[in-house]
């Protein structure tokens, strides 16, 4: 399946700021995370772990992606959220994909979020992260798809099925540790082939014939 179908929402080129802009709200997972920081036209965690969610719109068939110019160190996680409901509260629900640097074998996981707790769906997968990779996540109906572009084009790494949360919610990003340098956060409502969407109300670049 084509991924992504939407465009970049934030290229972080607006000058250093924390959070990057008013379109970012804090700590979607209610973990006590810091705000994301926009530095040198990228997004980073200035201290410890930082996270945020894109607040202008919510998405049902939600996709989200990020570029990783610099990967983290051992144990450092990068996370993408979809269908967040009640973010930054103890009642937050939704889905999360995590790509974690783990020595020689980096780990890929998908979680369901229930009232702030995380339940892993399925098993750990192992895919090595490298500088320059892109990471994506798509909640496609009841199937949640983990995507990587290692320079050879986007490809689905694996998927898990969970039908618990199907309503629209926010998308977000979590960066654990200051080593990561990320860029070009994008996503939105998945565009079906041949469908023209209003870029303002849907938050995506319109399909161009």
């Amino acid at each position, binding site marked *: 399946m084509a991924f992504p179908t939407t465009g970049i929402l934030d290229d972080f080129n607006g000058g250093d700021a924390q959070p990057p802009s008013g379109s970012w709200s804090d700590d979607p997972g209610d973990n006590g995370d810091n705000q994301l920081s926009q530095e040198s036209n990228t997004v980073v965690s200035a201290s410890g772990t930082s996270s945020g969610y894109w607040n202008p719109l919510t998405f049902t068939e939600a996709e989200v992606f990020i570029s990783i110019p610099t990967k983290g160190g051992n144990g450092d996680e990068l996370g993408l959220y979809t269908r967040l409901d009640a973010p930054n509260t103890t009642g937050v629900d939704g889905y999360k994909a995590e790509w974690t640097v783990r020595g020689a074998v980096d780990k890929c996981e998908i979680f369901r979020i229930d009232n702030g707790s995380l339940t*892993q769906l399925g098993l750990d997968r192992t895919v090595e992260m490298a500088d320059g990779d892109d990471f994506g996540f798509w909640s496609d109906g009841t199937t949640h798809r983990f995507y990587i572009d290692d320079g050879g084009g986007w490809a689905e790494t694996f998927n898990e099925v969970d039908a*618990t949360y199907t309503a629209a919610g926010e998308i977000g990003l979590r960066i654990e540790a200051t080593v990561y340098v990320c860029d070009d956060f994008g996503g939105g409502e998945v565009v079906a082939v041949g469908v023209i969407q209003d870029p303002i109300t849907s938050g995506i670049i319109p399909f161009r014939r």
Partner: protein
Amino acid sequence: MAIGWFIVPYKREEDDPRPVRYCAIDDQTTIIIASGGMWTESEVLGDRAIVKVRASTPVLSDLDVLYKRLPKDDINQSLSDLSTGGRDSLKSELLDMGYENSEIEVSLGTDVRDNTLGDYLNFAATRRLKPRYDRGTDTIVLDGKIQSCKSIDDVNQRVR
């Protein structure tokens, strides 16, 4: 390769300060994959999961020591040849999950041996409860609203 169905508990991720839980069979993913296998699960009542595993026979035997393996490998197989002890064991598992005897008997009858493995698994996947994180005790508590389980048909189709 062979197939096994198991009932497996969830565990708290110990090296993560966040409230994270996972199906304990993931601790055995490496040996399952190394044998050319795979597994998938449906989270059910009682903080456990119905897990279908495809793996080598020796690996399934190893898993049998760690988790409760169900007596049949095909969801269409009848449970009629189970011993009395086997019957009681299966029913006890449902009661331990948190199902009431009355609802078990409404769905499966007074003798679970009158059903197929699929009937048993479908009942076990009737419901689960929404988790929450209790910050005061740093525990994940499963006492929330009723939520649906992944269907046994989905589990059965995903790992073959």
